[in-house]
């Protein structure tokens, strides 16, 4: 097990984590399920690669541009579909994700279905970690702000949230936009890490995988998402012989989680610094072990 291999797994986890963080805001904190987030990743990936290759902009600028491209598309999609009730929104996102993939299959500028090789590799462990830390920090502050609480209110009871004066449409929109930006940045990272993009990489399996990680980690918990990503990205890599059965186990695990512990690994709780100290017996007398 050499360092190069471990580093690869960590970078992959970091890339997944960006997309999962975004989806965690949408699903875990706002209560909207998306089966098309890979579509936003694809938009971000192609936009970031296109801008980086043709305009020779620095990495961070092209990643942000990719994120912004995904965000802008999400505004259109949100405007059209966020008014839909119940599972019609998930169905619409599913259609969106597949449509993006099929469109990219036919765009010859980006190589179509054959893929787009030769993107410069500009990602290393340190910049992935930095981007992740920034992403986590922003997400924590967003979730703990007034806006984040409004989103949680929508998740808990949309009708009640609307009655007390929360503009539910606006907050769903913000949530979708933010999560699309995160997914777009994650997509950009994919391109600059593998040096190769193909629409097939962003199929429905990817979208479902992201949703599964969010659920596995625990709805409404950022540390849960982080833990879930690390576990579910690293585990299958470590058990390579198990590769064929990985997705079988995922499927079974999802059903099992839904019927036995729908709150997931962390169950809406967060790991906090205070909580860790407390667990080792250093905490304040009145400090809570885990903040809800």
């Amino acid at each position: 097990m050499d360092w190069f291999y471990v580093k690869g797994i960590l970078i992959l986890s970091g890339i997944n984590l960006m997309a999962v963080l975004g989806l965690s805001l949408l699903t875990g904190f706002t209560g909207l399920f998306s089966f098309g987030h890979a579509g936003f990743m694809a938009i971000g990936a192609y936009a970031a690669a296109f801008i980086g290759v043709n305009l020779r902009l620095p990495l961070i600028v092209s990643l942000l541009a990719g994120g912004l491209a995904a965000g802008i598309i999400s505004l259109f999609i949100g405007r059209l579909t966020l008014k839909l009730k119940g599972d019609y929104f998930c169905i619409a996102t599913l259609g969106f994700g597949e449509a993006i993939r099929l469109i990219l299959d036919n765009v010859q500028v980006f190589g179509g279905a054959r893929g787009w090789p030769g993107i410069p590799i500009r990602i290393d462990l340190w910049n992935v970690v930095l981007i992740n830390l920034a992403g986590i920090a922003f997400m924590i502050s967003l979730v703990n702000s007034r806006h984040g609480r409004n989103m949680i209110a929508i998740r808990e009871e949309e009708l009640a949230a609307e009655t007390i004066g929360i503009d539910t449409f606006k907050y769903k929109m913000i949530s979708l936009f933010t999560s699309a930006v995160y997914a777009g940045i994650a997509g950009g990272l994919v391109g600059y890490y593998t040096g190769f993009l193909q629409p097939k990489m962003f199929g429905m399996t990817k979208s479902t995988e992201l949703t599964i990680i969010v659920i596995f980690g625990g709805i409404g918990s950022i540390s849960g998402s982080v833990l879930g990503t690390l576990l579910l990205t690293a585990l299958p890599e470590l058990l390579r012989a198990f590769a064929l059965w990985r997705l079988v186990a995922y499927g079974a695990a999802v059903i099992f989680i839904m019927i036995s512990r729908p709150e997931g690994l962390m169950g809406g709780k967060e790991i906090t610094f205070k909580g860790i100290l407390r667990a080792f017996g250093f905490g304040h007398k009145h400090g809570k072990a885990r903040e809800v």
Partner: protein
Amino acid sequence: MTQFLQQIINGLSIGSVYALMAVGYSLVYSIMNFSNFAHGGIIMLGAYFGFYLLTLFKWPFVLAFFGAALCSTVLAVLLERVAYKPLRMRNAPFLYFIISAMGASMFIENFVIATIGPTFKTYPPVLSREPFQIGSLFIGRLDTMIFITSAVCLLLLVYFIDFTKVGKAIRATAFNARVSALMGINTDMIITLVFAVGGFLAGVAGVLFGMKYTVYPQIGAVTIKSFIAAVFGGLGSLPGAVIGSVILGLLETLISGYFSSQFRDLISFSLLIAILVFRPVGLMGKLGEEKA
């Protein structure tokens, strides 16, 4: 003109298979208000059962046909017992059902990949390839058989739902499950029955699909189109599902016949989004009232 009529015949043939699949989605939706994404997995298993009963066990075709349908029936009921009943028992929100369904679909598909393998299997020729000729039109025997079988199954379903006592109970449960339960209808039994009927039709559809094309683990990606048809016709409405399927089948063959088969799927998914945006209840769906 001949080519146009030829395309119409092909469209009707594939549309009728879509209808068999779509009815399964709609039946479950009408009772339980969620999209059973694992239905595609049951269809795929039906196709595999038919294939193995024909090739490995050398059953005569009619026997293998009913054998596959019965196996799918059992599996659909089993699926409901394992993945949905525990959720039903504690009145879980519908999103948990969708996630559970996604998990089940992932499990089934990848289980088949891990055990049988991802290779394509071709049904042994059951009917002669010699087509009927009417004027300058060629009508394949297989297409004719598919259309007649589907039509018979759908007519039987209509008779069952509209003219039998059990059918009446199903309609009552779809109208209002709680009141039906108070009136002495065993809703648990009705739900099992609905899954059994959907499973049977899924098995039939799987065998027909396998005969027309091939059998492979990702058939679910095709069945998602029958789901689009169900949404198009109006989720929960059986006539809607049939009409939606026939229209989608015709649209697809006409597009690939006159335009390009590359854009066929793109147009299907765009259609899905367009319907959800402009008329989320579909062609025949009723506007549901929101329950607070």
